């Protein structure tokens, strides 16, 4: 989802927008520059044209806790020679200042769905996402099972007023959601009890996210930033489905409530 922070693009020099990009992540396992260069060189020899102006985020949360700070400037320089542009480092709060002084952005560590399982590798000279290989290992494939499903959060207790539940993926509530409670999910929301609180699906901008609920008495529903409040919606669709089992989806920038 792109969210506009400034208005009237015609009168302004620029416009700030949020965007989501897929970046290659380089997980650093130790801070030894020599072994890093050796591995990088070996990789470059195998696939000389694979990385061309490729932005890279270096993950530092994979480093052992007691390790010395890696020489980020030197690493950035070596990566550059191989065609990779180090734009940011991720994780390793203790290296935040090191990153700043090397002119790099710092990102907090968040577990995401795909990065554990997919790595960019060369195939016929073209970058393609393929199954993960250990870059420093024997070339044996790693187990890549379990891409989906792991991100679904299941709550089997009532969600009470004032509680907020966030799931990066899908969110399944087996009990009721009280007024004043808030559900946030990157994916779909399923409520198998009474939904009286707020439900916001697709909060990271997924317009395909949907809300399913067994009994619909919600205060607010939202999909990908498009929302409806209980009082302000036009008389018909909200009240016609009050107390019913419904599906809510986004179509043509409007929320549609339909009976399940």
């Amino acid at each position, binding site marked *: 989802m792109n969210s506009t922070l400034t208005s009237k693009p015609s009168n302004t020099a620029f416009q700030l927008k949020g965007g989501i990009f897929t970046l290659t992540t380089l997980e650093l396992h130790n801070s030894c520059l020599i072994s890093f260069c050796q591995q990088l060189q070996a990789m470059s020899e195998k696939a000389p044209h694979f990385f061309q102006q490729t932005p890279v985020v270096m993950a530092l949360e994979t480093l052992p806790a007691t390790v010395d700070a890696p020489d980020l400037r030197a690493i950035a320089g070596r990566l550059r020679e191989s065609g990779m542009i180090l734009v940011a480092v991720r994780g390793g709060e203790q290296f935040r200042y090191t990153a700043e002084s090397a002119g790099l952005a710092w990102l907090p560590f968040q577990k995401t769905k795909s990065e554990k399982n997919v790595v960019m590798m060369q195939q016929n000279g073209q970058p393609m996402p393929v199954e993960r290989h250990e870059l420093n290992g024997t070339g044996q494939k790693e187990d890549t099972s379990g891409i989906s499903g792991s991100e679904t959060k299941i709550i089997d*207790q*009532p*969600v*009470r*007023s*004032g*509680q907020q539940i966030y799931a990066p993926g899908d969110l399944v509530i087996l*009990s*009721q959601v*009280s*007024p*004043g*409670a808030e559900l946030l999910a990157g994916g779909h929301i399923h409520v198998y009890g*009474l939904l*009286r609180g707020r439900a916001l699906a697709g909060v990271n901008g997924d317009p395909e996210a949907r809300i399913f609920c067994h009994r619909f008495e919600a205060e607010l529903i939202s999909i990908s930033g498009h929302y409806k409040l209980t009082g302000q919606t036009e*008389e018909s669709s909200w*009240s*016609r489905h*009050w*107390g019913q089992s419904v599906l809510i989806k986004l179509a043509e920038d409007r929320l549609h409530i339909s009976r399940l």
Partner: protein
Amino acid sequence: MARIIVVTSGKGGVGKTTTSASFATGLAMKGHRTVVIDFDVGLRNLDLIMGCERRVVYDLVNVINGEAALHQALIKDKHTENLSVLPASQTRDKEALTLEGIEAVFDELAKDFEYIICDSPAGIEHGALMALYFADEAIITTNPEVSSVRDSDRILGILQSKSRRAEKKLDPVKEHLLLTRYNPTRVEMGDMLNVEDVQEILAIPLLAVVPESKDVLKASNHGIPVIHQQTTDAGQAYNDMVARFLGAELPHRFIEPPKKGFFQKVFRSRA
């Protein structure tokens, strides 16, 4: 092992202290060694309801701070055997309560008492959190009106997330709904939520319904918990509550037969 029971609500004025006094008295009358603790530091009321305000020398904060021994602060109830009161301080504020201090007091009380009843202050701030943190069970005191129900819902969320049992991932705090100041006539008129409405929103088992009664105010002003007056509806309701808490199966009283609910009335017009 002593059971720690918090009487809480979120909202003020719903009858927490009245309930704490009668519930503790009821347990003691059934022969259980019981202590009731006032956690409303700075606004102490329990001693008034229990009729022991003139005998308060030391209080909970003194014990926590080591300024008095526990037995010096405990007041033996005049009316009931097996019952003691641990009053709150009137001159301190709730910040004087610490988890370590309270735990030490509870550990010592657990040697002598079967039930430790905590009368929580209103709100969801420090004092209320201190009162509910160690609870094994909670009496959620609720009036049949929307704001009280909402606040009770909030407190239930806090019990599930911030109590010791939640933090240590033990069995969750056992929750009981106590509906107080229930007026069947006004429920019938649609002014108040009925029992089913409240139960549907809070989704916890109903322990008892205590009817709105002039006797409660009278009893409070006389410093005698209303459960002592077994001729009154409120006294009998609290008696039923204690019996049910201890495992008896009694039919619920003081509820008119179910009528059309508040929500159905309000939302029928939307359809």
